[in-house]
């Protein structure tokens, strides 16, 4: 189904599965239609591919043995955690195997004095914070799927979250790692020190989208939990006023932990889904969160109040206690799945524009949305210019998907033209691989392909992702993931 870098799906050598099974202890290889169905797609549900087999190793040595087997056989493999990728990053390769890492789920070391955790790739993101919490620490990257997504997947796709402007992405919190590369070589980069010596191999590995190999052990830095939070919700008549407020906050020298905006359609959906309560008559809601020592938050709060008061809000609602803070975030985090309920299908993207052009970007998106008759809701990380347009359509209506994809493409091209990025945190994966050449020139892509070949000369690690494939259609997210429908995950 998908082809790339010379790796082609071919009829399995009848002997292959038998030899694969011999690499690991009995019971690790799943084959046959029923067990494989669960692995046919990830958070990008529109695409399915059936792997030859799914292997569920339980130790690092088993993973190493599997990758070495794949290297010797030139057998494509896709590493998978919880399968929450929104860019199709863990979509299986037909004719290859899936290496499911969920059973490598041990926190190997938690050292509160040095504030580090050493974990296996199948450890759930939130489990790191849960283990660190008794020591007053937390793991900062907080993708909204953090209750189920794994650290291995976060590392592969350099996952983000709502706090990236101040705290950075996954790569800013990975100090070192042990990995088995697609060649079968086992490497160790970085370590427990926060300082790196020599080229930053750890930094190069994080965000490789599974194209270099599989991380086996990851050393994470933990941060002290902020003493105090101050969360404010402000409603505005227009999106532009909300955008202007963001500009004023940023210009003031404040550095909030999170700055988020929801537009009218997103608000409407959140009200319907979780009975969120917003000031009436607002076209946009801004959420700002300050955090830090109580004395600092107290001073910053005064400045923020003054900026918001001057920004012509309909109403400003500060959270008076932890429950009210949670309610604000519940409305925000449920927005995407809530919008999804308004429409049978939708496309989501995560392009980035320079922050000062947010207003202009939203005006364009709205104008195109009206012109094309395609509804589009917007929820975004305003602090770092990371858009999350949600384009609604009904797949049963002839031409609707095509129009939605056309709007999605216009938005991505706009992000690039404005000097931004096609992805802020979901990665390129399957979904945006056709747009990579709009962001990087042929020489740059050739350079990245040479790097890929250095790590994976046979092109067997997660083939078909990140790099464009001639003739393949542009892909997008359609509809709610089953876990979103169940309310387990949401998107940012």
């Amino acid at each position, binding site marked *: 189904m998908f082809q790339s870098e010379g790796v082609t799906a071919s009829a399995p050598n009848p002997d292959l599965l038998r030899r694969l099974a011999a690499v690991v202890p009995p019971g690790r290889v799943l084959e046959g239609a029923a067990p494989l169905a669960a692995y046919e797609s990830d958070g990008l549900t529109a695409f399915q591919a059936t792997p030859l087999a799914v292997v569920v190793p339980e130790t690092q040595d088993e993973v190493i043995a599997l990758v070495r087997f794949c290297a010797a056989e030139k057998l494509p493999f896709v590493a998978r955690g919880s399968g929450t990728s929104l860019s199709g990053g863990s979509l299986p390769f037909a004719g290859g195997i899936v290496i499911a890492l969920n059973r490598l789920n041990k926190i190997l070391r938690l050292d*509160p004095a*040095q*504030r580090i955790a050493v974990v296996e790739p199948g450890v759930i993101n939130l489990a790191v914070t849960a283990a660190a919490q008794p020591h007053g*620490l937390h793991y900062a990257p907080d993708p909204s799927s953090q209750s189920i997504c794994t650290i291995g997947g976060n590392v592969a*796709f*350099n996952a983000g979250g709502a706090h*990236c*402007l101040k705290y950075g*992405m996954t*790569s*800013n919190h990975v100090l070192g790692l042990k990995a088995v590369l697609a*060649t079968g070589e086992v*490497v160790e980069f970085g*370590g427990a*020190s*926060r*300082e*790196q*010596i*020599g*080229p*930053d*191999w750890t*930094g*190069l590995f994080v*965000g490789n989208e599974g194209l270099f190999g599989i991380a086996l052990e990851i050393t994470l830095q933990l941060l*002290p939990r902020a003493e105090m939070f101050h969360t404010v919700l402000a409603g505005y008549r227009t999106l532009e006023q909300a955008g202007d407020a963001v*500009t004023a906050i940023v*210009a003031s*020298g404040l*550095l909030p932990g999170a700055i988020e905006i929801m537009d009218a359609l997103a608000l409407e959906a959140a009200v319907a889904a979780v009975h969120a309560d917003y000031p009436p008559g607002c076209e946009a809601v801004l959420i700002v969160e300050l955090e*830090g*020592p109580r*004395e*600092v938050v107290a*001073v*910053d709060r005064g400045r923020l109040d003054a900026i918001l008061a001057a920004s012509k809000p309909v109403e400003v609602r500060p959270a008076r206690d932890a429950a009210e803070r949670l309610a604000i975030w519940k409305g925000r985090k449920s927005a995407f799945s809530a919008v999804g309920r308004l429409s049978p299908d939708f496309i989501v993207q995560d392009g*980035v*524009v*320079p*922050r000062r052009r947010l207003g202009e970007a939203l005006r364009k998106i709205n104008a195109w949305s009206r012109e094309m008759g395609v509804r589009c809701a917007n929820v975004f990380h305003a602090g770092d*210019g*990371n858009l999350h347009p949600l384009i609604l359509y009904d797949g049963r209506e002839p031409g609707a998907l095509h129009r939605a994809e056309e709007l999605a493409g216009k938005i991505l091209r706009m992000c690039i033209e404005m*000097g*931004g*990025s*096609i992805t*802020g*945190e*979901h*990665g*390129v994966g399957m979904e*945006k691989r056709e747009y990579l050449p709009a*962001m*990087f020139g042929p020489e*740059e892509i050739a*350079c*990245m392909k040479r*790097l890929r070949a250095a*790590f994976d000369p046979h092109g067997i690690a997660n083939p078909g992702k990140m790099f464009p494939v001639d003739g393949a259609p542009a892909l997008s997210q359609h509809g709610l993931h089953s876990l979103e429908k169940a309310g387990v995950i949401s998107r940012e």
Partner: protein
Amino acid sequence: MTSLTPSTLAELADAVRSSPRVIAVGAGTKPRLSQVADEFVRISTAKLRGIVEYEPSEFTFTALAGTPLAEIVAALGERGQYLPFDPILAEAGATLGGTIAAGLSGPGRWRFGGLRDFILGVQFVDGEGRLLRLGGKVVKNAAGFDVPKFFVGSAGRFGVMAEITFKVFPRPAALRTLRLDAVDDAAKLALLTAAANTRWELDALDAAVDQPAVFARVGGPPAALDAIVAEILGKFPGVEPARAEADRFWRGIAEFRWAHANGTLAKLALTPAQVPEFNAWLRAQTDARGWVSGGGNVGYVSLPAGARLAHSRWPGVTLRGDGPLWLGPKPRFEIMRTVKAALDPENRFPSLDE
């Protein structure tokens, strides 16, 4: 020894292609990084200087590799912004490119991370003379491999940087510095560990090797800091030096004024738990001086002129002096050779161990 001084990016690419062996040099404040055989043509970035783009509202700037740090610090300061990792050797004339190649961050790295956490994009010339741009120009970007980070600490072995984009932050309105008592190495370790996990969100946490002291800095709105400073001093006995003295002190740290002039200077990667051992190791060497930075994650060692640092228990890099470039354990994997071949197939730049 031949030297070229390109003044445009096209000339930079030509300069790389002009010889089978080349290495980039900045202001020469970390001379060991480019101390290679005479056959290497030196490509100076002296004429590739200047801030290309600075958008305070975006928290980003882009500058040419040869831009002196001091110029950047001043431009950011005018708009109330800064590079939170406290760039090192700015007064000595260090350039942006050289700082990335050396992977050097100052005491401020403690609060928000080091240089690697603020680099967003890089335009560089690879070993075949191609001018390539990877990473991005916005504060958040997950497209493509993170080659900009890879260049941090790479000592010019994989490419010549031409232009770099960084993230910046608003500068705290005030900084307060405390000199806290730590009678011995055990006390230093205890203090570093305890102060690292508090509600204060310290801006810097360094420790002296030859004095019984740990230095903490806290930043924020002036009105908020009195109470925090009082609480710190209530918990850890110490004094608050006058502001001018504190400024002088941190400048001295950033410029390595404590180190031997013309001697060896090396940076080592430590964990806080290794600080007592590091201090004892330093004291066991004749005339060695040192400094502990980044909450105990960075150790600096200085030896007088003529002395050579040949060994270290910890991974490190020599910045000045004649010792080996890389110190201590340095695992070498096959992937390091193949990545070098991918970016520099003809080995135009020195190899990692050359």
